[in-house]
């Protein structure tokens, strides 16, 4: 398998295939910086603003990774995502809302796989999807989880990576477009060493 593209969003910057795309010069908080990214890429998806931090982060990273019209087989595009926090940040916000009138929208976002639901709805990806909660990021684990899907199903492409929000100042999304076929000039082999090299934390 090959990594044909990868994106990293952190509080400092956005990089695509390790090249700097947007720098957070103002050191803005999560919502301001992610809105800046959204507008820079003219994403035109109003639902973005209804999402919680976890889904906004993963959705943005996927949108930058794939562009507006990726040429992928929808039924054979899988998603494998992991994090350590699950949706703890959103859980706290929802919990606060219970003391008033609980927010139904916020409750829905207290499940970590909802970010994959948002990506699936936008791009109509109908393949396998799994979200794992791990103590910390490990390149070997991402490799193992993803290659298992390729080895045991007809999956052709997989959006694989890490989407983790600890706070509005501490968050990280690294998403890889992993495919059976190498189809970009910058592609690299999908293996733990390359994942380790490209994962920025």
């Amino acid at each position, binding site marked *: 398998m090959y990594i044909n593209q990868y994106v990293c969003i952190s509080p400092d910057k956005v990089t695509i295939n390790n090249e700097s795309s947007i720098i957070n010069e103002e050191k803005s908080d999560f919502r301001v910086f992610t809105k800046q990214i959204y507008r820079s890429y003219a994403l035109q998806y109003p639902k973005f603003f209804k999402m919680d931090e976890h889904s906004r982060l993963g959705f943005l990273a996927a949108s930058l990774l794939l562009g507006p019209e990726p040429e992928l087989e929808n039924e054979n595009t899988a998603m494998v995502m992991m994090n*350590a926090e699950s949706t703890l940040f959103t859980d706290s916000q929802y919990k606060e809302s219970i003391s008033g009138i609980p927010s139904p929208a916020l*409750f829905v976002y207290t499940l970590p*796989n909802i970010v994959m639901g948002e990506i699936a709805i936008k791009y109509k990806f109908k393949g396998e*999807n799994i*979200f794992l909660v791990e*103590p910390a990021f490990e390149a070997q684990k991402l490799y193992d989880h993803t290659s*298992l899907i390729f080895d045991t199903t007809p999956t052709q492409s997989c959006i694989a990576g890490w989407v983790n929000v600890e706070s509005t100042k501490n968050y990280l999304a690294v998403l890889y477009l992993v495919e059976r076929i190498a189809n970009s000039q910058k592609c690299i082999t999908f293996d733990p060493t390359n994942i380790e090299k490209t994962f920025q934390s």
Partner: protein
Amino acid sequence: MRIMVTGLGMVSALGNDIAENLISLKDKKTGIGAIEILKTVHKDSWVAGEIKQTNADLTDTLEIDDSLTYPRTTLLGIHAAREAFKNAGLEVTDGSRTGIVVGTTVGGMDLSETFYRKPKENPSFIATHSCGFTTEKIADYLGITGTMSTISTACSSGLNAIAYGARLIRHGYIDRAIVGGTDALSLFTLNGFKTLMILDDQLCAPFDKNRKGLNLGEGAGFLVIESEKSLNERKGEAICTLSGWGNANDAFHQTASSPEGNGPYMCMHKALEQAALIPKDIGYINVHGTGTENNDLTEGIALKRIFGEDVPPFSSTKSYTGHTLGAAGGVEAVIAVLTLQHQVCFPNLNFARAIEELGLLPLTEVQENTTLKHVMTNSFGFGGNDSSLIFSKL
């Protein structure tokens, strides 16, 4: 490589172990009723499949001696996993070749929601909050040191954990695994489902024309699965095989399935394909059947797309246990295996009239002395995460 199912463990509102659960299932005795243990202002407004044991009761039964106070999800998980392990006759001689995959959504929330405003009363809630804490503690309790994974994909978590464990075994990472799901009731989820307005304040009626919504439940259901080779080496006995699994994303809406039931259709289709079976091979389906307007209609549509006019006998046992969320896949997989093992199908309680668009009639009586060869179980989660498993007679 065949994946053998060798042990079962379960705790639910129906009973504290497999034997007690079986009795309630056969006696058509629902576990759904008044909320007594969970301290909620809503306890007189809603019913749930609550396990009538406090956390202290569960801790004592398990003889847990740890400086940390274990959350309810963890206690239920250890309880059921322990039974499955014993049931499999398994003694871990090489922990590194035994793995664990747990599906859960609630994690330590029952403690966190109580203590986050008064942390001095129980500071350990921070350490016990994560979904992964349950996985680690079950592993510790049973001496497992192989691959550990925690899956959180809403209501399909438990089934996905089972399928994932099977993949790890087939791929040679491990020889056997304890797999399933666990979730406890919490104010967090009770309030959440209330605000989504999909709860029924009376006993739920899955697949019924006048269904009003779901009842929440809690529980844990675990299986021990092994490679055939490793089972033969230890001269163990299998109950059945896990012959197929499938997962797909419905890609329509976060909390409702597409009108055509695409996600449910695709995952059932994949499970059949993987098991190398045709639809009429399936003798019984334990459906997701939450009792919500959307799920039962769209699941029914998907069933008809797969099975045509010959939809096999089916029932939703959520009418017995309530919807146990992340545990549902584990709990219902255990019930599906019991169905195959004992050749008895359990009914869909509270059913009166068919959904007009479907005309589908679930089982309403216990059926014994069946001759089932293959049974299917479905779990569909928010975020469009849809899964299906098939178990087959040896």
